């Protein structure tokens, strides 16, 4: 059936059709919806594959690999940063290979539209020695996901399926069934220490050789199946120009080449191992080549080394000669530039003037409990006369990092999952005068915050760690995590308690606060800052949006405009997006947008004139 689906959904649909029996992953833009789709499917269908959001990407990968070693088909999903976390196990599993089809879906983000490094995960294929497919569209993602399972089983290797944001988040019509064909394979895992352990150099080197043989085989298999598309114009006598493109750019190239019929093209989706026959064919046919790929010159390096091996004398245009950029997402602008260079046209004026006027900062949602925690922290610093510019607050990945934006202005750093705690430890050890505070969300703590907290406890570091526990992995769309309420977990899941973990680690100083109880929170943080050693505060209160979806709003707040002096303290301290300025009878007053207010009451704690109070039954604001 034809349906309009995104690249992420296409991966999910294809994996279901390929008969996966297990899917795992950790949420992260732009990869998230692939696993979300399978979760949704499994909720309402029987039979359906086992699916889980794992604690982190490394665990997710190991679970998928385990199932695949028992002969099942398995899918694991992650964003590029997550692939870094999983890499340790990916490299080792590559040595052993796989039995059932194992597909690793990684999503990259050229242009950093979701705001993490512009990492090129195609390098992982070279590093781990695994085949990599880079679909050019949602339709191709559907096709190549199914293909990846077959390839994986044919060559006994995990296969990396890599997509960029422009494929993952684009919707188009795909001929795809929303149907599950379980393979129902009998699980079987034979003990074979030569294949599945690494003890001893002989074993490792042998496995490495096998890996290289399998990799070679995968090149031949992909060549036979003609994954890449090659269109050569002219022949050996009439040497011409050729464009090599990779993944999503194949279509942009098509669009531009449609008015330049003389130019040959090689459109790659099988990126690694690179099909040398394809490249040699192109080289023999051309005297000039331009290579289009976003981010790193992965294809370009392989082509250049092949060309120099063949003693080929033409010109290669790409990134390494400085013509095309290594950063950002490519559009037809870069492609036109490369083709103009190839055709020897005069350099064209750069098109497109960027106008950046006001950039909207992203803030916590109205009623977000994290706002309460950071406001309390700001109040404590003020009370203890600690200078904000001297008190380092390390931030972490997820909604909690929004504490870096005005008017909160708390967080100083954002590096990687769990890094707030390790960084804080190092900063404290460096001898900074002011106390060092780490802030981290619950899901991030489970993901990678526990080892650094153990480290801090063991070495008796002098840091305060605030775990902002809202019970969900909110930033990526409200996935469950180990700390989510058991009732809301679904399946046979159980809840894992952060408090018990912190106590088990041996942190003696532990306080639990409710960020909506400002006075108590200020009191607790203030005491904790002044104490020594590792101190942990858990700020516990559910994510405003999940709570709202389940329970609706009970109360809202309103501002009695007769009492409002327009001092704007509420806005200055909280920055809650439900607060707005209104003009009533020619007088400017603060007001609360009743549609947005969740009734957390935080703004009321800022008002010295008693103007902010719970609204009456009608819920009318000023």
């Amino acid at each position, binding site marked *: 059936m034809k349906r309009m689906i995104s690249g992420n959904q296409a991966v999910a649909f294809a994996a279901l059709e390929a008969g996966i029996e297990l899917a795992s992953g950790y949420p992260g833009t732009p990869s998230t919806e692939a696993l979300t789709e399978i979760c949704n499917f499994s909720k309402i269908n029987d039979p359906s594959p086992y699916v889980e959001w794992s604690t982190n990407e490394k665990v997710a990968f190991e679970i998928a690999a385990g199932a695949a070693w028992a002969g099942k088909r398995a899918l694991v999903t992650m964003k590029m940063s997550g692939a870094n976390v999983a890499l340790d196990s990916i490299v080792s599993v590559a040595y052993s290979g796989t039995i059932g089809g194992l597909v690793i879906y990684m999503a990259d983000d050229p242009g950093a539209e979701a705001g993490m490094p512009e990492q090129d995960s195609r390098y992982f294929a070279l590093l781990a020695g695994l085949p990599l497919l880079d679909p050019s569209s949602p339709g191709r993602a559907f096709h190549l996901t199914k293909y990846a399972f077959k390839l994986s089983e044919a060559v006994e290797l995990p296969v990396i399926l890599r997509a960029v944001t422009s494929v993952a988040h684009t919707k188009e019509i795909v001929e795809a069934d929303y149907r599950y064909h379980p393979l129902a394979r009998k699980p079987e895992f034979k003990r074979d220490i030569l294949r599945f352990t690494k003890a001893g150099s002989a074993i490792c080197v042998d496995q490495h050789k096998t890996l290289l043989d399998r990799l070679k085989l995968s090149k031949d298999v992909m060549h036979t199946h003609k994954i890449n598309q090659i269109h050569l114009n002219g022949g050996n006598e009439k040497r011409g120009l050729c464009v090599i493109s990779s993944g999503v750019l194949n279509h942009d190239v098509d669009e531009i080449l449609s008015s330049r019929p003389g130019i040959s093209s090689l459109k790659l989706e099988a990126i690694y191992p690179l099909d040398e026959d394809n490249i040699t064919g192109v080289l023999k046919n051309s005297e000039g080549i331009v290579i289009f790929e976003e981010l790193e010159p992965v294809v370009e390096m392989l082509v250049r080394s092949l060309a120099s091996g063949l003693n080929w004398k033409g010109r290669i245009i790409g990134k390494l000669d400085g013509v095309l950029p290594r950063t950002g997402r490519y559009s037809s602008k870069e492609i036109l530039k490369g083709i103009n260079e190839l055709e020897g046209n005069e350099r064209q004026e750069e098109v497109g003037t960027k106008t950046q*006027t006001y950039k909207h900062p992203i803030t916590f949602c109205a009623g977000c409990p994290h706002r309460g925690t950071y406001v309390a922290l700001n109040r404590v610093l003020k009370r203890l006369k600690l200078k904000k510019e001297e008190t380092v607050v390390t931030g972490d990945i997820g909604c909690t990092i929004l504490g870096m934006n005005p008017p909160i202005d708390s967080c100083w750093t954002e590096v990687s999952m769990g890094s707030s705690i390790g960084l804080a430890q190092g900063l404290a050890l460096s001898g900074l005068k002011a106390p060092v505070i780490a802030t981290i969300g619950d899901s991030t703590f489970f993901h990678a915050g526990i080892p650094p907290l153990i480290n801090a406890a063991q070495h008796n570091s002098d840091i305060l760690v605030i775990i902002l526990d809202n019970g969900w992995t909110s930033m990526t769309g409200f996935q469950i995590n180990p700390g989510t309420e058991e009732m809301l977990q679904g399946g046979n899941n159980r809840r894992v308690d952060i408090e018990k973990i912190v106590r088990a680690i041996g942190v003696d100083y532990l306080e639990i606060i409710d960020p909506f109880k400002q006075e108590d929170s200020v009191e607790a943080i203030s005491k904790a800052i002044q104490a020594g050693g590792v101190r942990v505060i858990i700020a516990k209160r559910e994510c405003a949006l999940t709570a709202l979806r389940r329970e609706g709003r009970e109360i809202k707040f309103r501002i009695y405009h007769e009492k409002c002096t327009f001092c704007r303290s509420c806005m200055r301290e909280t920055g809650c997006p439900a607060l707005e300025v209104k003009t009533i009878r020619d007088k400017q007053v603060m007001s609360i947008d009743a549609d947005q207010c969740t009734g957390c009451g935080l703004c009321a704690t800022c008002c010295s004139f008693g103007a902010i109070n719970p609204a009456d039954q009608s819920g009318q604001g000023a």
Partner: protein
Amino acid sequence: MSENLFVTGVGGQGTITLCNLIAEHASDHGFRTSFFQSRGMAHRGGRVTGEIRIAENEDESFGPRISQDGADILIGMEIAELINSYSYLKEGGIVIIVNYSYIPSEVILKKKEFPSLQQAVELFSKKTKQIYSAVEQVNPVNLFTLGLFSAVKSSFKVESDIFSCISLEKTIMNKMKRNKEENIKAFRLGYEYGKKTKEIF
């Protein structure tokens, strides 16, 4: 050839829903359509964009993204984000503006500059004469904007009949699960408004 539609707004305005409606509508009418959605932090007042490409020919090959100077139509549901999208508009393209500004607290407190409708219109007149702007707006703003779009489209392009008021109404009825009446009402008001304020700035 494809027709390229770039839509922008801030989280909470229903930008993605608007784009979904347009894209599915075009696709249901047999056009090859792709729709890229920027997303991630849509519920926090941040920038949201949608890029829709529509081609008459089913087998036409094109990339999912609109390049700079590539949008035939630019729809801005928020003034600052509209201006931030200036580079995408084609020379002589169509701009549809909803006069709404999402002004965050820091602008109010620190008295930062925030662009006005007038500034937006001045800027865009460097590139085009076809600027349609709605001074008022009706909620839900995304359906109101869809109505504006329908009115503007039907006023000068013959082959774009698929975006006629009647045909889009059907799509709204089919695709929107909740608040049908409210949505249709906002859509019709947008359409009426678009018909009346056809003059170009």
